[in-house]
């Protein structure tokens, strides 16, 4: 089966293997910001933006992303200038081991595209699917508020 999609603003046409998840595809194609965590939708470390909405790529089969716009954190920065969310996560010390950070930033970005000034409850709701085992959640919330 052949599908088309946009990955980080580039058009992709590819043959897919039935049953292959988006997470597996992305990592195979060197998109390493998308992390392999629980593989059943509980940790959010594989979060990507699909048509602007944060979703878990481990639960997404490749055939379902046909004609979708996929964004990962690789599209946020050119390695010269950081994305404002990357900078505020760094400034607030919201990063420790970094495994959950790309997912958290993508979930935050999806929220900020929906609402410019979300309140604390809305931030907590947006980040509820992204588990962190190091810094906990106070600092990421502050980073998004910034």
């Amino acid at each position, binding site marked *: *089966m052949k599908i088309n999609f946009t990955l980080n603003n580039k058009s992709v046409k590819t043959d897919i*293997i*039935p*049953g*292959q*998840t988006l997470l*597996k595809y992305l990592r195979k194609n060197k998109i390493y910001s998308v992390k392999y965590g629980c593989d*059943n*939708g*509980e940790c*959010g470390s594989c*979060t990507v933006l*699909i048509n602007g*909405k*944060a*979703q*878990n790529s*481990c*639960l*997404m*089969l490749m*055939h*379902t992303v046909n004609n979708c716009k996929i964004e990962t954190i690789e599209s946020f920065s050119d390695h010269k200038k950081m994305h404002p969310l990357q900078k505020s996560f760094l400034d607030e010390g919201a990063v420790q081991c970094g495994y959950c950070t790309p997912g958290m930033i993508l*979930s935050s970005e999806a929220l900020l595209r929906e609402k410019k000034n979300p309140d604390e409850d809305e931030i907590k*709701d*947006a980040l*509820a*699917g*992204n588990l962190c085992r190091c810094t906990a959640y106070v600092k990421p919330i502050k980073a998004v508020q910034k």
Partner: protein
Amino acid sequence: MWSSIREIIIPTSFEKAIDNKIEKNSVFFGGGTYLVSAKDKNINNLIDINNLIDDSIELSDNKIIIGSKATIQQLVDKSITKLSEVAIFSNFSKNIRNQRTIGGEIAQKNVRSDLFTYLVALNPQLQIRNPKKKIISMLEWNDNGIIEKIIFNKMDIDSSGFERFSLLQSAPAFLMVAVVRKGLELEIAVSGKVEKIFGHTMQLDDFNKNTLKKIINDSVKYFDYDHFGSIEYKKSLIATGIQRAVGQI
């Protein structure tokens, strides 16, 4: 990777989808969160029905008609009073809410789901395609056919209550109670860390101390003594849950 999948079929009509389902080891595939998470090795063919169903949400004065492809987050965004509130409880992860559909929630019959427990008490009507169009109540549905629409009476949602008990607010509930008043009847559903949802219909006039005690005793049989608490403790939670849920009506 769901390695047992051999073929993905994208049918162009309900007739073709139903025909494809006859093939062994095939399942209908919508949002897919439950299926991909479980990765059942006995499943070889996915029949993707996303082109056949829609995600519309139509609100009128007395009905709410929801396309089975509507995501749980769409229900939350629409602010359909209690239905939206329970939809958040059932999936605290917004990422999952963006993927999981209401049709999938009904088809999977997950007894640990807040939303499914609430739907058992509400018992909405389902528009099923098998492949002909048929409208039946959710509790009558025997897994045959494809859920196309879910039809709610707005008054049922407005006359409902829901209570959940969990160790943390965002943790799965180990006990939950849904109550819906439908005219002169009261529908009660009790679920949680159980194998099966307890459902009970009674006349509103019959709701008193004795019938409440009977419901508590009947429903607590579905629970085990476990780290969430003793049977006596769960009895007291069911009593509190029912009273609070009735109080919300």
